[in-house]
């Protein structure tokens, strides 16, 4: 396996694993957050504005870790510096 193939295989597999973990763990965290918010909404419906706002802010913070994983996957697939430099080397030869 030459280096070009190795770079491609490593990038693709890593991008897939990154996206897999990046979607699983934040989903679990967000599920717990929404469940707790629903419980407290049922107990105190007067504070629904505060609870909803805090819920959304918390969900965005949790979502941002998923976004980091997504950005890394996109970089690996579309803007991969190792791939680009290897292609430039092959093209220059």
């Amino acid at each position, binding site marked *: 396996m030459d280096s070009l193939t190795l770079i491609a295989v490593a990038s693709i597999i890593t991008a897939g694993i990154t996206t897999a973990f990046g979607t699983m763990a934040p989903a679990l965290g967000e599920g717990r957050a929404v469940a707790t918010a629903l419980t407290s909404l049922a107990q105190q419906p007067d504070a629904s504005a505060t609870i909803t706002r805090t819920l959304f802010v918390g969900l965005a913070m949790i979502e941002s870790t998923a976004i980091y994983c997504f950005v890394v996957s*996109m970089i690996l697939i579309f*803007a991969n510096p190792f791939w680009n430099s290897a292609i430039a080397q092959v093209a220059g030869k």
Partner: protein
Amino acid sequence: MRLSPDEMIFWQYDFVKLNATIVFTWGLMFVLTVGSTLVTHKLSRDLQRSHWQNLLEIVVTSIEKQIEEVGLSQPRKYLAFIGTIFLFIAAAALCTIIPGFQAPTGSLSTTVALALCVLVAVPLFGIGEQGLGGYFKTYVSPTVIMLPFNLISEVSRTLALAVRLFGNMMSGSMIIAILLVITPFIFPIVMTLLGLLTGMVQAYIFSVLAAVYIAAATRTHQPKPETESGLAPDV
């Protein structure tokens, strides 16, 4: 596969590039500024007012209420900064309906610039509220050992703001671009709706987080006679 509107260049002279990000940002600035000027150049105080004035009043008062609920006791001082951030990001997200428009917040340049504005604004507001010594004392509180952690948390907060907004907007436009290749009829419309929703939520999140950081920086630690938090419900 275009990753960001930075790569679409309209005009280039030497190293000065006019790319889609800059052009669409100018377009947004023009629409927001000219629209607001047209609506507000003749304000009326009585009950007879134009629909646009009503709309702007609703927007301004709800932003002010949100800033107050976050914990800033005088929302008027921070309304300009936080309101502008919210309106710019929200307008960028809403205008993705217009065909041919690419949100400038889908480019890392714009989001890093907005996050740097927040990074600079937090110490400015903090020093304005607590004075130079009082603000720098918050970096070494509760002990001096916390100084590097506080500095690192400042930088990582800014980075998280930028990457969160960039990732959300970029993923929205990329999903639609990919779906247009696969199923070019109904499904991209559904994904555009989802992109609108996440765009508005991200605009709200960005401005609320900026307000929370400013509130944390301007919170004075002297004992106050009235309750500090405005969040306690009135019983």
